[in-house]
C-alpha cells in the first residue's frame, strides 16, 4: 500500500509536464511532423490497403491492386 502511494505520488509529477509555447523549437522542426506535407501521408494511405490486400481499405473502391 505504501509503495502504491509512493508510486502514485511520483507518477503524479508526469501529469504536470508540459511544453511552453517558447520551448517548441524542436517540435517545430519539419522532421518532427507526422506528415512532412509532401503527400507522403496520402501515398501511404493508397499503398497500405493494397499491401495488406484489404479491398477498399481506406474507403477507396477497387480490388486492392493499388492501381486506382
Amino acid at each position, binding site marked *: 500500500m505504501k509503495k502504491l502511494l509512493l508510486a502514485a505520488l511520483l507518477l503524479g509529477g508526469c501529469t*504536470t509536464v508540459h511544453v*511552453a*509555447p*517558447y*520551448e*517548441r*523549437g*524542436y517540435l*517545430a*522542426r519539419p522532421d518532427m511532423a507526422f506528415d512532412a506535407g509532401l503527400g507522403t501521408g496520402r501515398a501511404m494511405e493508397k499503398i497500405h490497403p493494397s499491401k495488406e490486400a484489404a479491398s477498399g481499405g481506406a474507403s477507396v473502391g477497387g480490388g486492392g491492386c493499388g492501381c486506382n
Partner: protein
Amino acid sequence: MRALLVACVLASGGAWAIEAGAPLPALGAPALEDPARTVSLASTKGEVVYVDFWASWCGPCRQSMPLLESMQKKYGPRGFHVIGVNKDVSPADAQRFLRQVPVGFTLVHDGGNKLAQAFDVKAMPSGYLADRHGVVRYVHRGFTSASEAALEREVAALLDEAP
C-alpha cells in the same frame, strides 16, 4: 500539511503572467551577438520599450521582425527601443534567420528561459510594450496585420506622453 499545500500551489503556479499595468522585470540576458555582454531591461528606463519574444521557427515572426525594424528606425530617435528576445535552442538558428531577415535593434538570447518564465510567455511571438516609467502598457500575443496597426498607434501615443 499546510506547508505541503502551499508548496504544491507555488510549484504548480510558477510565475504570474505579465499583463498591462505590471512593471517590466528588472532582468538581463546575454546579447545574441556577444554573449559576454549582458543587456538589462532596467537600463532602458526613460524610453518606450518593446520586448519581443521571437524564434526562427516561429512563422509570424517572419512578418513581425521587419515591421519592428522599421518602427525602430522611425521612432528610435524619439526614444523607442526594441529588444528582441530570441527563443531558439541554438543561437546559430537565430543567425541563419537574421541573414534572411536582418534587423538592427538590440537582440538577446534567452537560452535558460529566465526571461520567458518571468514574463510567462503564452504565445509566440509575444510583445510587451512598456512606457517611459518601465510599466507594461500593452501586451501583444501572436502577430497579425491587425497588431501591426495597433502597435504603431500605441508606440506613437506612448512617445507623446509626458515623461
